[in-house]
């Protein structure tokens, strides 16, 4: 009975926008095969648009070959609220795991980048919008603890819609939890290099991502606590054309550097060297 009612609700509201193929460039409309984009690190060779990168591919782009050892791979989200919106949370989780091959929206583990040891914590927007629930928070906290223990820098790559609604208040608690984890890094001290990819928003921007010793953004990435659509709807303000983009954030002093993905690995390498005492 209840499920029939729910199904009818699903069809309310505006029709979803026409879906473009994920490999069609929104900048210049060039279209690519998947194997064409891999060697360019998913940057459009025509116009430089940065396509989204899945977590494993990102690790391969950044880590020296064969040096990444995934940690806490068995860690999974629980369903503390037995959450059910139009579908069960557990069902969404299972589907995301099948689609991405990941246990949750972040993978973590020690690696070498440009022959420098570090800890990687990389998010995947493909896993439920890169949302942060208890599993992401716990993985990040453990990554910080491992990094602090061996005084190695932590490199975070974020891509997230924010806290995961399906875990309710416990997701919100991942904000102070990850902030506390960064505080642990600071006490060690271990450097924290925060790389913000598109999009880094809401709860992730309002917690660990903004606390990097160095904050690096990818070109054109949306970095906003509240996204443009919600700002427009709530305030009826006229939005600047570059609202919330990495470039705007840099102008207002929130980002240290905007680095093209093709330059990201050597750039992180330089930072890791600079953060090595001698």
């Amino acid at each position, binding site marked *: 009975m209840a499920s029939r009612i729910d199904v009818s609700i699903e069809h309310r509201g505006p029709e979803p926008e026409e879906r473009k193929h994920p490999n069609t460039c929104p900048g210049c409309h060039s279209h690519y095969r998947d194997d064409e984009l891999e060697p360019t690190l998913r940057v459009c060779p025509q116009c430089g648009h940065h396509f989204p990168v899945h977590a494993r591919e990102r690790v391969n782009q950044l880590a020296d070959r064969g040096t990444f050892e995934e940690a806490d791979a068995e860690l999974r989200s629980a369903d503390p609220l037995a959450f059910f*919106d139009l579908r069960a949370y557990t069902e969404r989780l299972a589907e995301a795991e099948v689609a991405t091959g990941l246990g949750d929206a972040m993978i973590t583990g020690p690696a070498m980048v440009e022959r420098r040891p570090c800890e990687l914590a990389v998010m995947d927007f493909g896993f439920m919008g890169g949302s942060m629930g208890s599993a992401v928070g716990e993985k990040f906290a453990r990554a910080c603890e491992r990094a602090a223990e061996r005084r190695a820098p932590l490199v975070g790559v974020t891509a997230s819609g924010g806290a995961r609604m399906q875990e309710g*208040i416990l997701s919100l608690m*991942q904000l102070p939890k990850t902030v*506390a984890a960064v505080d642990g890094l600071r006490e060690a001290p271990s450097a924290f290099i925060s790389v913000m990819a598109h999009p880094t928003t809401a709860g992730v921007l309002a917690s660990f991502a903004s606390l990097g010793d160095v904050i690096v953004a990818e070109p054109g990435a949306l970095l906003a606590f*509240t996204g443009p659509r919600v700002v427009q709807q709530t305030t009826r303000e006229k939005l600047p054309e570059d609202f919330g983009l990495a470039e705007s954030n840099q102008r*207002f002093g929130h980002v240290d550097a905007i680095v093209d993905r093709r330059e990201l690995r050597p750039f992180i390498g330089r930072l890791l060297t600079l953060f090595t005492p001698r």
Partner: protein
Amino acid sequence: MTMATEEGTQGAVEQLRLRERLAKLRELPLLRGVGVSGEMARLQRQIDRIGAEPSADEVWRAVELARHQDRPYTLDYVERMFDDFVELHGDRSLGDDAAVVSGLGRFAGRTVGLIGHQKGRDIRERTHRNFGMTYPEGYRKAMRTMEVADRHGFPVFTLVDTPGAYPGVVAEQHGQGGWIARSQLAMLRLRVPSVACIIGEGGSGGAVAIAVADCVLMQENSIYSVISPEGCAAILWRDAGEAKKAAAAFKPDAAHCLELGVVDGIVPEPPGGAHADHDEAARLLAASLEEALAAVERLDSEERRRARHRKFRRMGLFLE
């Protein structure tokens, strides 16, 4: 007929679930060292009440009461709980955010730093207070009082009552996300004891920014949530009108937050809710703050900081 049977079964299942939860609650180290008066009995009463009513309605009642237009706001409590209070204005950088009140006051014979969200009661004041929705300037102002209190050894109280941080263009340009993060970090690093209480709406990042305290309390009819019920409904149900359903699903009420280990205690309200009797609401809040403060003050400052870290480090439930 089928419906009735189904509902009956569901009701029984719900009762069973609640009894299990109650049993679990009894085992939990609920108020680790925090002897908020008669807490267990009140909790029991609250759980009984939830058991007695349909849970969705109960949750929605809390949402409505948390937003009640006559509910006492931070300054209503300050006036009643403090012998003296000097408000500290401005972030020493850019502005003075009226959605946050901060200052130093005399509480139970000693000086404390106080930070709280402030809403307005009439249209004019509501606009002035921006409906309790903070700009980054507000968090910087809060951090300034934290810093002064920390340096002088004054405990910090925070009163949380916001629909959320302000979602505007200028707020973004001023670094809304970053300042929410830094405000949390500032609270985590305090050497002085801190007690936070959700006194109305604990709306998402804007709330947690000033709620990273040694002891976090919630008033009986307050809510604490990752997103507003309307926002959640708009995204997951694609219809903001389904807010009640969303609230029932993500359970922002005090009893559930206590059960999940997110808050340390529930502060009772006068019969009918805090709006019905501001004086009594303030008396009950002051008593709880005083008890909570006494409890967290037992630790020395380094132990307390470590305990605060551990407490937030533990937040969350996952499988392994």
